[in-house]
């Protein structure tokens, strides 16, 4: 079974600075998807960024980018120019391309605090 590990329970960043959240995963599959989801306090979880394992190029979405290291099974999220609205719980998630349906396996999450 696939597992996702987020080793940083909590991180802090100064507004306008850059922060990197770490994620490692374990799988025997070669084709899969990786995601970062954001869960703001008392609000719904939303997709931040997605990476297909067959793509070597790292995904970017505005201030959010990933560092995908397939051999190392590492998938970190970099947030540039951090804003107060970035404060949330961030979940790394894995999705097999072989299993039926969008079954996501989540990590335990990292709480990101943004200081003004």
């Amino acid at each position, binding site marked *: 079974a696939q597992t996702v590990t987020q080793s940083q329970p909590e991180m802090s960043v100064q507004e306008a600075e850059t922060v990197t959240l770490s994620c490692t995963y374990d799988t025997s599959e070669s084709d899969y998807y990786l995601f970062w989801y954001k869960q703001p306090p008392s609000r719904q979880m939303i997709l931040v960024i*997605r990476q297909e394992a067959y793509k070597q190029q790292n995904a970017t979405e505005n201030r959010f980018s990933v560092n995908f290291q397939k051999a190392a099974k590492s998938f970190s999220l970099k947030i540039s120019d951090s804003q107060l609205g970035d404060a949330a719980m961030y979940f790394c998630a894995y999705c097999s391309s072989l299993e039926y*349906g*969008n*079954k996501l396996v989540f990590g335990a999450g990292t709480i990101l605090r943004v200081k003004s």
Partner: protein
Amino acid sequence: EAEVAQSPRYKITEKSQAVAFWCDPISGHATLYWYRQILGQGPELLVQFQDESVVDDSQLPKDRFSAERLKGVDSTLKIQPAELGDSAMYLCASSLGVTNTGELFFGEGSRLTVL
């Protein structure tokens, strides 16, 4: 903007009581998921529906949990009897179909406290 609706947002109950949660997915979304998120942990899939059919309930504790999506639209998750360990956030999510894009749309969740 279309959202996944869940109710109630908060529920406090005593152990051995019955509790039910309701979810209305985004219109047109064929796939519906119920996740359980225990404090300090990531969400774990309980049950997945494709239209009105259950496609995965392998992690659903069937002795006390049940889920249905009778008309393939909204869904109800029931717990009877509730136990202390059931205290958690219950998240509903939906997606257009089962192709593995991984983009799920989540509701705000129903937080259950069992006393």
